[in-house]
């Protein structure tokens, strides 16, 4: 991945300080187009901070982020965010939540609801269009959050520990569905997680971040098992090797 046009997102020499605290130091990273890159690391390593800088939600102290060659200054229609705590409007129905990104862009009601319905079906929530978030389980709520991010048709999907607030079984289903999404949607995914297994399972590229000061320690690109059937990945020797290797290098940073 040396050709810059192959990268949907490029992070160049980004620093982020909160007063005295150095959250990110001289961080550079490329995110190949059409692939899923995980930001993996122990808590406090600045992975969510980096994601929010890419989203344009918080400014970098110095350095720059390029999305399709353009410098990020604020949130834009080329990126969509999936939140750890879902961030659904509790007073709005599923369909209005899903269509909210389009509503903010001024898309007429009938048009945006048609688009929303399509993505509600895609995430498997047909029949729940007029339910309210509190009537849904955690997993279903995150499907709403995912449908909302998909419906604005952004090229880059930013996912902040999207599956950490759902139960283990739902989480596995989500991970399988995510693999299908990466294959079919032709979008670039940036995925923050603290789960080693999850990162190795879903990623084309894993960036391991280390804390104090935050930096990229290693970039791992699983080769062999990505094209295999989802049922076989967790038994693949390469999968197991990478999980072990990552744990070996992160072990010393866990108190």
């Amino acid at each position, binding site marked *: 991945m040396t050709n810059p046009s192959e990268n949907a997102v490029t992070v160049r020499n980004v620093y982020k300080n909160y007063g005295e605290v150095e959250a990110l130091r001289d961080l550079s990273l490329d995110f190949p187009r059409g692939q899923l890159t995980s930001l993996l690391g122990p808590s406090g390593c600045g992975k969510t901070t980096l994601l929010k800088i890419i*989203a344009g939600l918080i400014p970098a102290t110095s350095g720059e982020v390029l999305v399709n060659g353009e410098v990020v200054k604020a949130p834009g229609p080329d990126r969509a965010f999936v*939140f750890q705590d879902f*961030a659904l409007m509790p007073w709005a129905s599923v369909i209005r939540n899903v269509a909210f990104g389009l509503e*903010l862009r001024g898309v007429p009601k009938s048009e945006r609801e048609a688009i929303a319905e399509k993505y509600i079906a895609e995430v498997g929530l047909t029949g729940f269009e007029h339910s309210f978030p509190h009537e849904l389980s955690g997993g279903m709520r995150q499907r709403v959050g995912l449908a909302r991010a998909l419906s*604005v048709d952004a090229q880059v999907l930013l996912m902040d520990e999207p599956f950490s607030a759902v139960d283990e079984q739902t989480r596995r289903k989500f991970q399988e569905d995510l693999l299908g999404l990466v294959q079919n949607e032709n979008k670039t995914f940036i995925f923050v997680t603290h789960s080693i297994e999850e990162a190795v399972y879903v990623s084309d590229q894993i960036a391991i971040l280390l804390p104090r000061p935050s930096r990229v320690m290693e970039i791992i690109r699983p080769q062999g098992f990505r094209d295999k059937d989802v049922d076989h990945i967790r038994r693949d020797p390469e999968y197991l090797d990478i999980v072990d290797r990552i744990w070996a290098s992160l072990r010393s940073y866990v108190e």
Partner: protein
Amino acid sequence: MTVFGIKLPNMSSLLLWGLLWEFIGQIELTFFLPPLSAIFATLLEIGGTKAFITALKETAHAFSIGTLSAIVIGVPVGILMGKSRLIDQLLLPWVNLFLSAPLTALVPVLMVLFGFGIKAIIITTALFAIWIIVLNSRAGVMQINRSLVEMAHSFGASPFDAFTKIYFWAALPEILGGVRIGFIRAVKGVIIGQLLISIVGFGSLFELYASNFLMKHFWAVLIVLFALAFVIAEFLAYLERRVDYYASRR
């Protein structure tokens, strides 16, 4: 309430107190408390008179304009205070001061500033209602889920969109609570205004009946006022229950 295993309808205790009132009235313990039945008879008698209708109209007019302006000004100010630390620090001491101040003592000042007319009464009414509306709207915004704000921002919401589509709705349960208490305080405000500033509306009826010891009339008007305040408070409580489903899940 359940008595001897029989479930009584809500507010049936009022019946008990009504009977006690009737009894004390019938034995003529004090002129101050005529029998409840006589009060209701008087109520029917004066209810249709021109003086009563005029008083009701004048009071409703001052009350509705006063409370409406308290909401229209109070809710946005409260939301802005909740959003911006600077505005909050500028205004919060004043809001707290006026919330706890004995506003009745300020009424003479209002008379000097705004004259003896209906305008001063409306301003008194608004002044009684507005502070709790501001404080509650502020509290509603301050407990907003940060990621909802980030969500709106990340999907490109303008500040105005964020205000009307996120902040207002997220704070709505608290806003309605503030409006309900504000309305109850405004009932006080409008009557105090009508008694102190210019003797109009229900204030004039109270003044007239009390100074002539027409206790039946006095109580009749008071009961109408209680009933109106109760209906308004219950209606707003009903609206609050409508948004209950998300109040605890934001």
